[in-house]
């Protein structure tokens, strides 16, 4: 099923799908959209990628985070050390001058983790209401008014949980089906 047009297009389209799905997620409160639809859209990009390139390639490209860890730690303070590592991992991902100092760590992001994060986020979003003295799952809003999102509140956290869960589940199913 690998055609050059699809293969090239899908690589460009994945970020578009991602951005669009997040847009749909935020938009959901006032217009059609929301976590369920957003999650589905977000995963569809990856599904096409899987169909074109296969599971292994997808996992390698998108579900693996390469981290660099400072082997030679000069521990002035732990916080500074952390900050140093975080800076290297975020800004200078490609080029590090003294390569020998760094060891590579690979972290796999499994779909099950995404599912768990989604469920966790949704379940804990209700706790905020609980701690403010109301029944569990009472929504609480900030006073801000942001263009697309509207007023952000705990419901947005809940919706994000839904998004992650649906996203993770569809990915999981796809990977299972496409393997072998």
């Amino acid at each position: 099923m690998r055609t050059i047009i699809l293969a090239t297009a899908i690589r460009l389209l994945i970020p578009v799908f991602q951005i669009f799905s997040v847009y749909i997620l935020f938009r959901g409160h006032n217009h059609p959209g929301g976590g369920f639809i957003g999650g589905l859209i977000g995963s569809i990009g990856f599904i096409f990628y899987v169909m074109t390139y296969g599971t292994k390639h997808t996992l390698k490209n998108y579900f693996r985070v390469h981290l660099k860890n400072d082997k030679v730690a000069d521990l002035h303070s732990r916080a500074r050390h952390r900050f140093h590592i975080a800076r290297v991992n975020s800004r200078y991902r490609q080029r590090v001058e003294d390569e020998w100092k760094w060891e590579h760590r690979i972290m796999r992001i499994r779909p099950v983790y995404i599912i768990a994060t989604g469920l966790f986020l949704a379940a804990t979003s209700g706790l905020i209401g609980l701690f403010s003295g109301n029944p569990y799952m009472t929504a609480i809003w900030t006073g801000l008014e942001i263009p697309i999102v509207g007023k952000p509140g705990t419901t947005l956290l809940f919706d994000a949980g839904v998004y992650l869960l649906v996203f993770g589940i569809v990915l999981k199913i796809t990977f299972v089906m496409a393997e072998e």
Partner: protein
Amino acid sequence: MDIVLPFITGLLFATGLYLILHRHFFKLILGIILFGLATNLFIFTIGRLTRGGSPIIPQGSEVAIEPYADPVPQALLLTAIVIGFGIQAFAIVLVKRVYQAFGTNNLDDLNNTDKTIIPPKE
């Protein structure tokens, strides 16, 4: 449309059930999917049909303005569809696994699999 949709729903129910009753795995999956679709349509139709008028509060208003569709069955359906998908996927994987493990595509061959799994006593 109020008069036609019940017949369509009934037809889908009948087709889905007919496919499920077959012994073949593949038809079982098709049947489950159709049955789910029919159920969703059933709920949707019971909640009354409203042409146009989606349940979204228009700009500049604080309450919904008639005519708008009933949002309650819609909220039910939205999750039902996604869950239905999860079930479908589970059924597909299950059928695939059974097909690989037992090499049969006939549901009737599975009615004594429990006995075969028990390892013989030594």
